[in-house]
């Protein structure tokens, strides 16, 4: 038997060994990354360019590069400058910008390292209530990048973009059918932009009747964008009370309705994760009082394929393509918020939109709106909306089809109820007694001991390898925890999450103070948000400048 003389042995943990700090501050795969401005400089670029003065590229000799000079800070002159042959109106840049650059390998490493400090759906369950963090299929990404969609200009002549217009028209058709509504405005850029679109249409319709009215009624459980949007549209916001079952108090609503109420904004399913069973009756009462009904469609994922909002008497509803239809959230957008309208509101929908005229698809803009759409309240955004999201959403919808989308809502609701019933013996579910939930399960912090809070539980969940649920929302439940698992989680993933939730909840109820220190395994411990707001540091400054600002 030969003896290995290299000293190699299979690894075995040394008893009693302690982990200490490291020279780099890194911890194996957990890599620290400095700020761009600390590792880059103004002389480095990761892009190669052709020389603008190159004769091979044509008669550009009149413009020359003066050659780069040092100078890292705004104020010092640096970089290439045009010769007198330029046509810049005498406004040539004469100060450095202060933009740090990295070579390509450094840049790729910088952002790859940063990416690893993020939690994501691709890594695990991301149960943010009312945010619908579902799997993002990569087919959608592939389709969006097809040159025929990605590399076309919004102002190309219409006959050169018939495929793009047809795609928008086709997606619009799906959205109208799935919601049972009359029409859809595709241009709003996100959910809140869609809300604005809906309310401006409502205001326009009421103005056309001769009275815009003054008040919009919003349930206390509503997302903050609802009152913010209503205020923007020039309305006063009043709250609608809720019942003990977490639904709109129909009698109180009816009592408040009158000639001053322009509309109600209702989220359905609501932000407590519950369907509003009186929705048809609410719509009827509002219409009888001369008002209109806006539905926040953020939670459409719970009912797609099983309920059409049009059957509930709704006049306008936005659809978050980045929720129900799986376009990626991307760390906070871009979103896309098409708005479906009832027949009553359709004439007031914004420009532009796509119309099929014979075999062709036409883009109706300001120029041609007058012919058939003279009541439109106008344009909300430059160009035609979030095309890159439309391609993704249509790929998702076609993949699921009518049968699959119905299965989506069923599985989303089943998963949420499974979480609700596997946790409600341990955590307080304020509306759990009133029946099943829809796509999300709501709990409160009742029974937590030793001063522990919802925040502590959430941070404990981070150490367990999960993204926390939505915290402290809706406002109507103390220490709210809103869990939306979505349909793209397996039973095994849910069981592991439930196990982690139970473990952390038991610690919270036992007053285990170690939860106050959580998270301890994340790239950062708890961050001081109070200090960040008291003395905002919103941009990086060179050390001298930062010190001078002290």
């Amino acid at each position: 038997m030969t003896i290995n003389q290299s000293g190699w042995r299979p690894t075995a943990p040394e008893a009693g060994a302690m982990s200490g700090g490291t020279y780099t501050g890194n911890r194996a795969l957990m890599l620290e990354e400095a700020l761009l401005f600390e590792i880059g400089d103004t002389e480095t670029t990761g892009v190669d360019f052709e020389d603008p003065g190159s004769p091979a590229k044509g008669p550009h000799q009149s413009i020359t590069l003066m050659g780069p000079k040092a100078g890292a800070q705004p104020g010092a002159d640096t970089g290439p400058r045009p010769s007198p042959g330029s046509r810049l109106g005498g406004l040539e840049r004469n100060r450095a910008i202060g933009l740090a650059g990295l070579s390509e390998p450094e840049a790729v490493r910088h952002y790859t390292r940063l990416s690893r400090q993020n939690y994501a759906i691709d890594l695990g369950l991301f149960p943010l209530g009312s945010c619908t963090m579902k799997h993002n299929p990569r087919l959608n990404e592939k389709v969006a990048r097809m040159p025929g969609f990605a590399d076309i200009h919004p102002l190309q002549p219409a006959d050169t973009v018939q495929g793009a217009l047809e795609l928008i028209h086709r997606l619009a058709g799906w959205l109208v059918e799935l919601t049972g509504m009359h029409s859809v405005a595709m241009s709003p850029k996100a959910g809140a932009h869609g809300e604005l679109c809906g309310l401006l249409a409502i205001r326009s319709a009421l103005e056309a009747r001769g009275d815009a009215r003054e008040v919009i009624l919003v349930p206390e459980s509503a997302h903050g964008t609802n009152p913010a949007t209503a205020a923007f549209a020039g309305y006063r916001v009043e709250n609608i009370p809720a019942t003990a079952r977490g639904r709109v108090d129909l009698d109180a609503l009816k009592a408040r309705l009158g000639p001053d109420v322009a509309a109600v904004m209702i989220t359905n399913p609501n932000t407590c994760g519950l369907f509003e069973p009186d929705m048809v009756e609410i719509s009827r009462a509002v219409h009888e009082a001369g008002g209109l009904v806006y539905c926040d469609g953020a939670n459409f994922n719970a009912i797609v394929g099983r309920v059409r909002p049009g059957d509930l008497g709704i006049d306008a509803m936005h659809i978050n393509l980045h929720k129900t239809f799986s376009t990626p959230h991307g760390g906070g957008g871009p979103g896309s918020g098409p708005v479906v309208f009832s027949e009553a509101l359709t004439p007031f929908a914004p420009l532009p939109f796509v119309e099929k005229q014979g075999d062709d698809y036409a883009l109706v803009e300001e120029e041609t709106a007058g012919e058939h759409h003279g009541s439109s309240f106008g344009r909300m955004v430059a160009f035609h909306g979030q095309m890159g999201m439309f391609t993704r959403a249509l790929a998702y919808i076609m993949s699921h089809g009518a049968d699959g989308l119905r299965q989506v809502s069923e599985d989303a609701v089943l998963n949420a109820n499974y979480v609700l019933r596997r946790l409600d013996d341990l955590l307080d579910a304020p509306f759990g007694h009133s029946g099943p939930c829809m796509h999300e399960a709501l709990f409160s912090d009742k029974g937590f001991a030793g001063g522990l809070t919802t925040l502590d539980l959430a941070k404990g969940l981070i150490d367990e390898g999960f993204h926390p649920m939505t915290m402290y929302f809706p406002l109507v439940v103390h220490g709210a925890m809103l869990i939306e698992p979505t349909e793209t989680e397996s039973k095994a993933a849910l069981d592991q999450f439930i196990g982690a939730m139970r473990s952390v909840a038991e610690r919270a109820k036992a007053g285990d103070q170690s939860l106050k220190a959580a998270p301890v395994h994340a790239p950062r411990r708890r961050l001081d948000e109070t200090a960040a707001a008291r003395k905002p540091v919103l941009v990086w400054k060179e050390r001298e400048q930062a010190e001078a600002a002290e």
Partner: protein
Amino acid sequence: MRYLPLAEADRQEMLSAVGAASIDELFVDVPEAARLRDKIRGLPDHLSEMAVERELARLSRRNLVAGDVPFFLGCGAYRHHIPASVDHLIQRGEFLTSYTPYQPEIAQGTLQALFEFQTQVARLYGCDVANASMYDGSTACWEAIGMARRITRRGKAILSGGLHPHYVSVARTMARFTGDVLDTRVPELTAETDTPSLIEAIDDDTSCVVVQYPDILGRIGDLGALAEACHAKKALLIAVVTEPVALGAIRSPGEMGADIVVGEGQSIGVGLQFGGPYVGLFACSETLVRQMPGRLTGQTVDAEGKRGFVLTLSTREQHIRREKATSNICTSSVLCALAWTAHMTLLGEKGLRQLAMLNHARAVAAAERLAKVAGVTLVNHSFFNEFTLKLPKEARPAVRAMVDKGVLGGVSLGRLYPEATGLQNGLVVAVTETVTDEDVEALATALEEVLA
């Protein structure tokens, strides 16, 4: 169904765990009449990945791809080369499939990238601070007008004729509901911007003057005198930049005295995409930050004293302030902002200035060549990578006719201003680094033929 992991056995087991006999029992709150018994009729069933790809590829081929032809369209959306690594980086699942960074301990990647983005935007615009992005340039422009109203407590905004007509249209829509008064004008086919008439219009009711730089016809006007005139009347100057690459070659609006600088970021890192999603940039002076709309990232420390980043000053925002918020905006455009910041990092100061000079050199050469086409005159004295030609006849049919010759030859002013009779012969031509000498020659030839 490839996106749904639950097996039928799982569903049955879970139903019994929740005490429901069937899935229908979970929809018990839906009124009987509104409950769909079966899938919606008339809609197709699910398709395989291959089938979806095949069908959508078919639609995509019914479009004329910018990269396949000599291409000269601009007016608020520009075709630039984007390094391959940018698209790779934004497709990292940790960026692509994360959410708004509400739990900063596990979102430092997005937060640090946004902090770097804010710094780059602020420096490029010559301002103190910038936010973490808006939907796009047009909505950022309107938000700036609203911000100026809140700060000055005045309701009249003066919009330059050089401002992109879609941006004007958005502001007009919104102002109808907020009660702001807009003083708008249509551009004229002249070499100079409308700065003198803007200065003349400023009065004690003016909240702001909004001016595009370079403007819709590509002209570059000095903002210094305009800023002084605004400040003399305690109004704000809002500068709008639709082509950020220009700021690699010309002075920033901030250093010329603009109080708020907003714009479209699409040129850097974000492709044309038929108009969206794009990324709105928004910067201002430090003193105005609490009136700023949108998300902001700030630096702080964690419990161990390590530097980290969080969303901050959220007391301006709708989820805290509700109806008293500075804006109703919730979602921004973070993934596009990430593409923007990654591309800008690859460029760096040196690369951006080279890119800008390359654009300008190509545009100068193209303008000289196109001005030699019989009957065509160059309107601009100054321009960056976009200029306006005056044709001897209406530009809109000319653009149409050039398509038949395989050239996407620019944006006709008739498309943007269908009712302005004085603009119908105007053609706006954008020339970026992606344009070759052969492309310019093809455009010149096509123009000669359609004008003949």
